[in-house]
């Protein structure tokens, strides 16, 4: 896992309801595993925009981009360029 993934997991553990004992892979669905709900998703988007100084266009808020750590890190990398 890279630094961005570690930071995302750090957010989920400290500001959301990801139990310390739960192991998360980069391809796990965050919604299907019950780690974020629709409100949590919005808070997660806020964190990512602030932390990485990017603006996530509304059309990017899709399960393909945002439901896995891999999708989110790819999106951050794409929008940071």
């Amino acid at each position, binding site marked *: 896992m890279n630094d961005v993934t570690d930071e995302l997991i750090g957010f989920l553990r400290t*500001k959301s309801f990801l139990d310390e004992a739960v192991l998360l892979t980069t391809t796990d669905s965050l919604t299907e595993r*019950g780690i974020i709900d629709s*409100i949590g998703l919005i808070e997660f988007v806020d964190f990512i925009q602030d932390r990485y100084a990017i603006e996530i266009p509304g059309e990017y808020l*899709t399960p393909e981009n945002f439901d896995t750590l891999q999708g989110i890190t790819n999106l951050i990398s794409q929008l940071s360029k």
Partner: protein
Amino acid sequence: MNETVNMCRRCVLHSAMPGVNIDHESGLCQFCRNPSEFSPQERVLAQKDMDALLGHTRGEGSLDVIYALSGGKDSSYGLYRIKQEHPDLRIRAILFDNGFISPQAIRNARTICDVAGAEFLRLTVQEDLLKRAFRNAAQSHDVYPDAARLRASDICNTCISIVKQKLMEAAVVSAAPHIMFAFTPGQTLSPVIRLSPAFMRWSRSLFEAQLKKMGIADDDEMFLLKKDVIGQGKQDGARYMIHPLLVWDYDESNILRILGDIGWVPPALGDKNSTNCLLNSLTIFNHIQKYGFHPYACEIAGLVRCGTMSREEGLEKLNGRVTIPLVKDIAEKLALSPEYSP
């Protein structure tokens, strides 16, 4: 609560709740160790942003705001105050009558609309469909993710999801750019959320999957945002969901005082956590029975964390007993299986 359960020493969360981690050294949960609530300075800035957005983004049609009004204290106060601060806003307040809203709450909603100068609309759905949805929610154990069931009961998550879906639909159809909810600082952290069509589609598909898990197809889109409505309207079809109570000082006793002055009457529902919905006692009983913790714990923890409620007041609310005859009565009305009734 047994002796192996640790409670956060600052708020009211405890280690028996899934995903709540109490640090052994500090005795604090992860939210108290890393608080996200606004400071007073941040709240002032957030209010300026909200006011600016409301000031310059107006509806193309006859409405600017679709407002979620329950007739309870928070939404009644929110409507009154937003009209005090933005008298030019054209607001339609929608009361979603889930069949269990107290008559006094409905009277309160009408009164507040009259006093504030907002349009009032009572939205209903066929009673048997709603009861089936609430019954299936109460009897489910895995419909909502942990994160959602930490914030609210399965029945409340179902009800609020319907309200969100239908208010998004109303905003798109009436070309109103804003949707307003009176969530408290304990219920959410973001005062303004931009709802793009893509996000609305995702939100719809998440709720559709949850309804299916409950055995509800909703082919007629009675609960879901109508698919062909998404994306209609001006610009890119986006709307803003606004939570004004997050940027104002939240002081429950002051809110009740102001509401009393303008004719709002507290309904006598027999529980300390709701001033509008008769389902509330049952939802608390059902949630504790199924999951072992109070559905309002997260909300109350947030209020304690941002200083608008003391920890003692919070614990008192969480430890308050539900009214068993009321729970039994509502369980009967929903035709719940006997194991879900007291």
